[in-house]
């Protein structure tokens, strides 16, 4: 086999490999599932400046409701990012890293980082905020109600 033939064969093989990969649908990764946070959520843990204060007072009655029409409401309100009812949005339904609230009476979004960990087999949401002094950082870990 001379070098020209050899080069041609290599090019044909490479072309077939490219075409083969391009046509093989099995190699496409499965689509990431939508992280639907709509529903009612209750507090399971609270930290203040990194210190767990969950048992320090009764946080159990607070409930945050993300309605499927992207409005939200509270029951038994506790300090949070926003106070009044309004609308909510995540930055990406498949990979949500930011959660935004807009109070019905407000004109600007209030945004926070959102993490969506699985703890003990259950999907939780973790929200950080500073309702008082900006130097005081709080974190609520919320669990979906009724699952």
């Amino acid at each position, binding site marked *: 086999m001379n070098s020209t033939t050899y080069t041609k064969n290599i090019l044909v093989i490479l072309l077939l490999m490219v075409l083969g990969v391009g046509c093989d649908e099995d190699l496409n990764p499965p689509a990431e599932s939508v992280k639907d946070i709509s529903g009612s959520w209750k507090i399971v843990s*609270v930290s*203040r*400046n990194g*210190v767990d*204060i969950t048992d*320090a*007072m009764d946080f159990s009655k607070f409930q945050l409701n993300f309605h499927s029409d992207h409005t939200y409401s509270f029951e038994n309100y*506790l*300090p949070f990012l926003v106070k009044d009812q309004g609308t909510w949005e995540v930055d990406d339904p498949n990979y949500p890293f930011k959660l935004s609230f807009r109070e019905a009476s407000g004109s600007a979004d209030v945004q926070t980082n959102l993490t969506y960990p699985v703890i003990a087999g259950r999907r939780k949401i973790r929200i950080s905020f500073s*309702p*008082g*002094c*900006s*130097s*005081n950082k*709080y974190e609520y870990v919320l669990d979906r109600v009724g699952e």
Partner: protein
Amino acid sequence: MKSNSTLSREWLPGNIIVVILGLLVMTCVYIDGVDYASSVKAGETITFTAHTRFEAAEDRNNPSRVVFAFLAPKSWNAAQNTTATYTSNIDVGVQTMSLVPAGTVPKNRPGETWTGAIRALYGVGGNVLDDLEWIAFWSDKTYTVRNADKLTADIVISTVAGPYNLRFKPTFFLNYTDDGIGSNTDHYKVYNGTCLEVTDGQGDIIDFCELQFNSAQPLTSTMNDFVTYSFQGDVEENDLIGAESIYFCATAYTSGGEAIVRCSLDESSRMKKVFQFGNTYSITIWPASYFNVPEGEELVGLEYSFKNEDGSIEVKDKSGNPYRYTFYCQ
């Protein structure tokens, strides 16, 4: 077979040597003392001079920075108000240090920052309140050391005392980047300083050095924070020791000049016992809700005391006045 057995015979001592060398891979560090004044006026500059040593027990070819951290009240904003320099026996002139860049991870503490790892190890040193923060500097210059090198350095931290009257115990930490807070505690040291007092500032003295009957966390807050008030009954003899329950009796003052009293001695003001044994009780409240603050008003301060179940015994400060807490942010 012969070569294999020869290899095996050589393998064992060779690896023992490696293990021994591994054990000797160290640069022991020391903080021999830290000089500073016992008091400083609020807003004035205070200097801490740490006398440090590094003694190498082997060659270290990885360039390494000296890491020096100190603990200061959060209200000092020390990361913005501090310079760090040093002189050493191997440098000419004054050398500079810089804040360890945010997010920098110590070599042996994956997932942690330098200040986070130091806090995890040493907390707030010998202080009894936690509104303190570690500030970490590293040398702008890197060093490689040779076996038996003995380096000395006087590290000078110059910072500005914050605006509030307080007492705290400055605490210091020394390490180097090539160790990165490893498992051998010879490679890093902490130095617990004596109490430093800030005078001529704002507010009542906040005492980080010694336990008082009362404490409040966080030290700075608004009425929309969660605030924990504690009665530390074991600090010294007092009339509430042995009480069935202890209650939080408070008067809050609004920006409009209104006084709101909550001293009902019922379940809502009953303090929780923090530990099974001992006499420490606490109550955590959302002040805006606890005092039912009218819409449009803010809380500016609080006066409080601790009472037994029928209110016949009350613990106040040593002057017989209620304890005070001011709502403000830094």
